[in-house]
């Protein structure tokens, strides 16, 4: 469904090539295409319209230079605009260096407030803050237990008052409790509420008045559709939240609601939350979300993830070995381990621009990697370094030792030999003398 936006735009812009300049007539199809991309990503109708108008103004009259295609030019304008819109300063969480810091979570039901509270508590504990969680959701069954369970998992105490039916009192008391007991950070989790529910909206307003938080965070499901503008605006009018948290971005939603919300309330996006594991909290990068909204994949994350796992020294050594035909099974094993460190192949490839679609239909057999690994691990050090040693009886031993068939072992050795032959060819022909694996880092 998502092909690279640039490709899409290239098609509609083909006719412009040679016209020298972007004009209202020659980019109208293109703008419609961009509008479709934004709407498919759940950007609000009105917000998309305004955005397209801005892009048009920026694009008109731009000269089409030969080194850049019109598609690339427009994509860049859009990307820059999106990044600018979603960026902005003041993204770091306001933490008082002395005294008490109170952070209030608000949002609709099921947006992920409680899970996020747990994550933020863990994050702040790591920064050596003394954190207290406050459970103010007196409505949803077992919401307080949920927060308590999370608190236990991360060793953060949870404040609650059994049987108390007044959320405002719980919030207020928790601050007193925190002060009296040496906590310097209080995270107040509240019940999910609909923005049209007057009573509950008044309640959250009262909570805010009572505890005077340094940050009020609006927690929103990244899968939210067109109505995100209405709920965000209503919450902002009522509690004047100071930041946005986008949750469930580990799914494949494009997160266009972030743009809509930014457009109506203009508060910074402070965190993105990926998944239920309590350490899957990330700082927000506007340009990545811009890419995601445009269906371009998250290339930056991919590169970073690869960098994290990619040891420069290892790469250099590998390069030397490849060049001198000394790439043995030991190196092979190292490569497999690196791949595994980088995480699921599928999720990695999903980050590659334009790959989203292709990847859905392919299933990479990660079990195959495990099998190869087990075979190599059943070889002796000597055998790994000198694969020529691998005669029939050794192969049989390896097959038995790793729980694979002799055919599997033979296949791996054959693949290894083919690879060696290929490397030999490369080196002989002399092209690509400097394959330079470091350039694999894509930056």
């Amino acid at each position, binding site marked *: 469904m998502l092909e690279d936006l640039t490709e899409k735009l290239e098609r509609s812009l083909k006719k412009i090539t040679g016209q020298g300049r972007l004009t209202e007539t020659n980019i109208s199809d293109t703008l419609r295409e961009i509008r479709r991309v934004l*709407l498919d990503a*759940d950007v609000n109708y009105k917000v998309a319209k305004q955005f397209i108008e801005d892009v048009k103004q920026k694009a008109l009259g731009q000269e089409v230079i030969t080194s850049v295609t019109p598609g690339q030019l427009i994509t860049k304008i859009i990307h820059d605009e999106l990044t600018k819109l979603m960026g902005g300063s003041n993204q770091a969480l306001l933490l008082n260096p002395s005294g008490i810091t109170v952070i209030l979570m608000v949002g609709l039901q099921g947006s992920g407030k409680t899970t996020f509270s747990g994550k933020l508590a863990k994050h702040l504990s790591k920064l050596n803050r003394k954190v207290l969680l406050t459970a103010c959701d007196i409505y949803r*069954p077992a919401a307080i237990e*949920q927060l308590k369970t999370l608190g236990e998992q991360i060793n953060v105490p949870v404040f609650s008052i059994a049987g108390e039916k007044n959320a405002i009192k719980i919030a207020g008391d928790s601050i007193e409790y925190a002060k009296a007991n040496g906590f310097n950070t209080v995270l107040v989790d509240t019940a999910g509420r609909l923005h049209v529910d007057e009573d509950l909206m008044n309640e959250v307003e009262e909570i805010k008045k009572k505890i005077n938080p340094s940050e009020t965070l609006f927690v929103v*499901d990244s899968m939210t*559709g*067109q109505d995100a503008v209405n709920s965000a605006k209503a919450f902002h009018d009522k509690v004047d939240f100071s930041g946005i948290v986008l949750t469930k971005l580990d*799914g*494949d*939603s494009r997160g266009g609601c972030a743009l809509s919300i930014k457009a109506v309330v203009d508060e910074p996006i402070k965190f993105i939350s990926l998944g239920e594991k309590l350490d899957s909290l990330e700082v927000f990068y506007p340009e990545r979300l811009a890419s995601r909204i445009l269906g371009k994949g998250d290339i930056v994350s991919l590169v970073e993830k690869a960098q994290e796992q990619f040891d420069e020294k290892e790469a250099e050594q590998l390069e030397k070995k490849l060049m001198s035909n000394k790439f043995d099974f030991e190196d092979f094993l190292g490569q497999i381990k690196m791949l595994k460190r980088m995480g699921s192949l599928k999720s990695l490839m999903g980050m590659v621009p334009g790959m989203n679609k292709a990847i859905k239909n392919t299933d990479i057999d990660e079990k195959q990697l495990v099998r190869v690994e087990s075979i190599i691990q059943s070889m002796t050090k000597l055998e790994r370094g000198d694969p020529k040693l691998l005669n029939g009886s050794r192969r049989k031993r390896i097959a038995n030792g790793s729980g694979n068939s002799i055919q599997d072992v033979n296949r791996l050795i054959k693949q290894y030999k083919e690879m060696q032959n290929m490397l030999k060819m490369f080196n002989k022909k002399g092209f690509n003398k400097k394959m330079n694996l470091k350039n694999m880092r894509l930056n």
Partner: protein
Amino acid sequence: MALFDNINLEKLKAGLSKTKNKLVDRISETFTGKAQVDEELLEEIEEILISSDIGMDTTERIIENTRRSLKEKNSRDRDTFMQTLEEELIKILGKPTDLDEEINKIKSCKPFVLLIIGINGSGKTTTIGKLSSQFKNSGYDVIVGSADTFRAAANEQLEVWANRSKVKIIQSKTGADPSSVAFDTLQAAKQDNADIVIIDTAGRLHTKKNLMEELRKINNVLSKVFLYAPNEVYLVVDGNSGQNALIQAREFSKFTHISGLIVTKLDGTAKGGILFQICDELKIPVKFIGVGEGIDDLQPFVPENYVKALFS
């Protein structure tokens, strides 16, 4: 039969019309002073439909179909247009939920087994609370099974609902195999001679392959105890969702046969328009809609009423 006899159109209407932005006002505004349907008007309709999360493709098709039908009708006035548009929308949604049919289905198998699935925060457990209460009040013996062994306190949440509606619950321990809880629940139902079993599952994103496989396994385990089980697999979709809900439905369909949708949180200002696309592409009927936090705020789905509530 008292099943869902609280059908309350007013509540749905109230929910769907809580905002000034409601479809109907805007359509009416759109039409004020205009006798003819022109391009500009169609564009305004497009905005209204897209703003309801119906999606660009489906919106374009609906408008196109409405135009085509209008040509045949040889009339372009407001009423005809609105009527035609409504007809097109209703056509996509298919048949209304037939409670007699549902009741007959329930009577045909003992126990009748429902599996409730969906992504995190869509409202599965709350929906099960409402469903079990409705069934219980209609005189059925209900057992619920808490196969959400992952989320903190999910068990306790379902337990509170079970106590409220006075139905039996089979609990799980955090980290236990959800399939084993599903199995235990069916065994208990067998022993107690229960009429209806409802299995709650952990919220899972459709992009997590291992969790989706787990769903397949739960499904298989149910079939092992009763060959016919599950009788119904309901996908719970948050009415606030945007276009991703269609992808969710598509992906979930690959791992289990979804027999119906339950659209929740329609008491806000979100319109739940994504259900048009799900119905259209995957031919999954909407069975119930959630319009509030109360135990009775679950209603059988009637396309005509839904569309009317959007427009009236």
